[in-house]
């Protein structure tokens, strides 16, 4: 949102390139393509340099991008299954966490006592890397899938709760007064005023929570699980000899793409759910 503000602020000063007037989406796609092209070029340059030095171990550690692509193509079923194992758990945990966070947030704003009892802990949890809980949860719950659900839900619900409380309390006082003058019930005020006003806050929380829940699931893979993308990453370091570094790079690429898709999907949902927001209505290119 604010990046868009920054972008538009600076674009007013520069002359428009009128001959290629791209729409927002195609401009974003073009930008993505340029980024990928630059990354691949840098990667090729580094790989060629590694081979030029004649350093065998460096050559082994840094495969060509096309090697990785080939590896992804040949062993796609492995990567697809690992992505599913990590990604689906992260999404389910994320959804559970969102639900719990919404409920808790709504409960919290009903009473000053409940709110002031819980808020300091919720805030403190923002400053604590909850990810450190993974090894402990792993010992308590045993099943890696259950740990993934828990940790993803846990990370999400804290962030969502804060966002909900902030959003629900942030309705314009004038609007609240108007609802009062219309004799609106508590529920009606919630339904028609407070909740819609909170939606942008909730989504900005969700955009923060999405990559964190994926990190949580990855960390479960890293330590103790024997499935998922994180496991592929670590296992390729310890188990394999030659082909392993290609697996490592492939798994890395898949993980990064998964993270991007997940967060983009949340952003897409936001556009669909809260389409009335000025940032979207004006046809902004966020």
């Amino acid at each position: 949102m604010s990046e868009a503000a920054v972008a538009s602020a600076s674009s007013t000063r520069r002359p428009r390139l009128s001959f290629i007037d791209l729409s927002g989406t195609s401009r974003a796609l073009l930008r993505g393509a340029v980024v990928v092209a630059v990354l691949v070029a840098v990667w090729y340059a580094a790989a060629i340099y590694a081979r030029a030095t004649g350093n065998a171990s460096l050559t082994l550690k840094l495969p060509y991008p096309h090697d990785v692509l080939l590896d992804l193509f040949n062993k796609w079923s492995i990567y697809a299954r690992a992505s599913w194992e990590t990604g689906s758990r992260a999404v389910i945990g994320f959804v559970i966490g969102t639900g719990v966070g919404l409920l808790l947030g709504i409960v919290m704003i009903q009473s000053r006592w409940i709110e002031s009892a819980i808020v300091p802990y919720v805030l403190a949890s923002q400053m604590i890397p909850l990810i450190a809980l993974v090894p402990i949860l792993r010992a308590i719950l045993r099943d890696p899938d259950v740990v993934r659900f828990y940790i993803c839900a846990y990370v999400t619900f804290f962030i969502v709760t804060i966002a909900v409380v902030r959003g629900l309390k942030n309705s314009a006082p004038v609007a609240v007064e108007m609802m009062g003058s219309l004799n609106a019930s508590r529920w009606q005020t919630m339904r028609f005023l407070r909740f819609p006003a909170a939606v942008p806050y909730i989504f900005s929380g969700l955009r923060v929570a999405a990559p964190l829940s994926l990190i949580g699931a990855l960390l479960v893979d890293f330590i103790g699980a024997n499935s998922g993308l994180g496991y592929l990453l670590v296992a390729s370091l310890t188990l394999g000899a030659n082909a392993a570094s290609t697996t490592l790079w492939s798994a890395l690429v898949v993980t990064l793409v998964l993270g991007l898709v997940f967060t983009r999907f949340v952003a897409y949902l936001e556009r669909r759910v809260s389409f009335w927001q000025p940032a979207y209505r004006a046809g902004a290119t966020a």
Partner: protein
Amino acid sequence: MSWAHARRLASPQVVAPLLLGVLVIGAWQAGVFHSAFNLKPYTVPYPSAILAAIEDDGDHLLKHVAISLPAAVIGYLTGAGLGFLVATALVRFAPRLMTQVLPVISATNSLPIVALAPVVGLFVGYGLPVKVIVVAFMTTPVMVVYTVRGLMSVESEARELMASIESTPGQVYRFVQVPTAMPFIFTALKSMVVLALIGVIVTEAMRGFEGLGFVIADAMSGFDAALAWLALVTIAVMGIVSYLIVGLVERLVVPWDAASRAAG
């Protein structure tokens, strides 16, 4: 005055969280959670056991703090410095490039950057450097995005005033843009604290033989739950204290904003 002071202490803001904390810890010590969720003391120790662990493992733990903390701090400062430099370079010298690059940089926030840790470790090993690099990777984009936002949010009146007194771009940057950006920069610095700790802990828990992340993973697999929980509490304290320190520095550096925020 003391009466008002006492009244404030008795307000829900102070009493309610303390009450909840005491209740939860008391119930935990009394074994309520253990019987309700069928938890075992060797995975979830009682608070008294965690306290007792300070005496047994305190020194051991401090040694690992001395490994994790510098990694987090160096990575954090690297990320902050690098982010600030990149943001400055973009805003001052390449504003056109910036509009294209900024969305890309902010998109990296949505990537699970910690997945880079094994790849970085492949090249530099599993000592201090891998943690510093991972933390810097995680924190730099946050700093860039917020600093750019801050440097760009100068009011046009201020710009016009500076132009009318024939100030150079360098002067505008120093006397107008940087002070304007300060609150934004501190927002970034605050959210980077937890990212730095996450980066260090994940890297340590994944591979390596030292640091708090390793202690938690290792202690849990050796059923030394009290030590693992103590390490968890230590990390929590580190996170909160670092956050408070950043907040304190913010009060000193940008008193005008901190005051207005407290009032609002």
